[in-house]
């Protein structure tokens, strides 16, 4: 947490004590409910705190609200560091009217997306190494435009190539709480399939492969949710 926020909270606590009592937890829950209902986009805890009166505990209120909606027609879901209300997936069949036709993604785009999600942060060269074919210009553009991927940190390898990581929008789209919840992530990692083994000079020199593997180990998978 940044010192600035710490400071804010300290101030909040002070003001709350001196000026008025914070609303009851039931009241806080109502407020969180209203805010989450009013927004299409996930709302971060930080944003909730800024909108609730001083002295509120937004996180606890959200958790309580989440429990309350368990099993209902809509539910509280976590999307990275934020929360949103979404309809229950089992009711998809009565929601045809709201269904939006998504642009069909090409096979290349889908594979590229999966590689970014499972291997992030990943460079274009690494995507190409895994797919064994060059990534066309439009593919990356399309994923950037959908706001499903974004630029991550540059890699500390020669040329300092840019990397790609997935976004909160991606998490929201696929109903994931964080990139850690990707299906089969553990199994793939266990099977060594997310490693970037040195290709022993196979197709095109990839001297960077080893360094990349290290970098990946260091990378915090939570960074997309942070």
């Amino acid at each position, binding site marked *: 947490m940044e010192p600035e926020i710490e400071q804010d909270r300290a101030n909040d606590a002070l003001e709350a004590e001196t000026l008025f009592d914070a609303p009851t937890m039931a009241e806080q829950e109502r407020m969180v409910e209203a805010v989450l209902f009013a927004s299409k986009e996930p709302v971060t805890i930080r944003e909730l705190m800024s909108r609730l009166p001083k002295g509120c505990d937004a996180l606890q209120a959200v958790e309580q609200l989440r429990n309350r909606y368990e099993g209902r027609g809509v539910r509280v879901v976590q999307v990275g560091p934020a929360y*949103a209300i979404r309809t229950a997936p089992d009711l998809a069949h009565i929601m045809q009217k709201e269904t*939006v036709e998504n642009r069909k993604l090409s096979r*290349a785009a889908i*594979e590229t997306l999966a590689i970014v999600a499972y291997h992030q942060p990943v460079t274009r060269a690494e995507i190409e190494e895994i797919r*064994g074919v060059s990534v066309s210009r439009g593919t990356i553009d399309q994923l950037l*435009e959908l706001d499903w991927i974004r630029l991550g940190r540059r890699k500390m390898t020669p040329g300092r190539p840019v990397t790609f990581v997935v976004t909160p929008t991606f998490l929201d*789209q696929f109903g994931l709480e964080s990139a850690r919840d990707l299906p089969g992530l553990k199994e*793939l990692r266990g099977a060594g399939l997310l490693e970037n083994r040195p290709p022993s000079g*196979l197709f095109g020199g990839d001297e960077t492969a080893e360094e990349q593997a290290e970098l990946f180990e260091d990378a915090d998978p939570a960074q997309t949710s942070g």
Partner: protein
Amino acid sequence: MAEISLFPTEDQSVEDRLAAEALIVDVDGFEGPLDVLLMLSRTQKVDLRKISVLQLARQYLTFVERAKELRIELAADYLVMAAWLAFLKSRLLLPPDPTEEGPSGEELAAHLAFQLERLQAMRDAAARLLARDQLGRDFFARGYTETVTRVRSVNYSANLLDLMQAYARIRTKEEFRPFVMDRESIFTMEEALERMRGLLGFAGSWTDMMNYLPIEWQGEAEKRRSATAATFAAALQLAKEGKLELRQNETFAPIQMRSRSEEE
């Protein structure tokens, strides 16, 4: 086990051949050589870890041969892969040469198997990802967003693509001006040649090439660069003509030259 799955053999029925040809036309549909290899490996119907790379290499080479016979244009990477697989095949078949450097045939084969398994794993992962409940298809966001109060604030939005495109636009603007020759800072090879021919007679001993740059071209970086390039090109031309010799003691060391005419 079937050797060829993609191409017809002579005794196949017409339907079989038609089906196979449909596949051939689909070469365009393959996403590169790894994709073809993955497809071929399916005929082995085994765990990708236990795949026979040797057999796969044979199948791939047959695939490329057939494509050639049928005059299908294969992209360069398919041919690069064919060459590499032919090399791998020979490594796998011949007893290992202890003097040979680099990874063994088995290591190369194991890595190829790993690559195939990894690609297949990513495809499966992509399929699983797409099979998940999706926003706007299986679950939905709020349809109506509240506009209760009249407090209006303007939120200026711009995304990364806008930013990058704006920058790209500025940086390429100058590339679109009408075509003019900027000759001010260009020292041509012709000029350099002319100058060097005049100076050749005095070049008896080894002299740093940079000394041949006209004095007025030695200051500004832009001019010096152009003059260096032109002088170097001219020196190569003169060396080719047998009029001078060039030497360089090590990489990035000064290039020295001297006239040859005196020795003759």
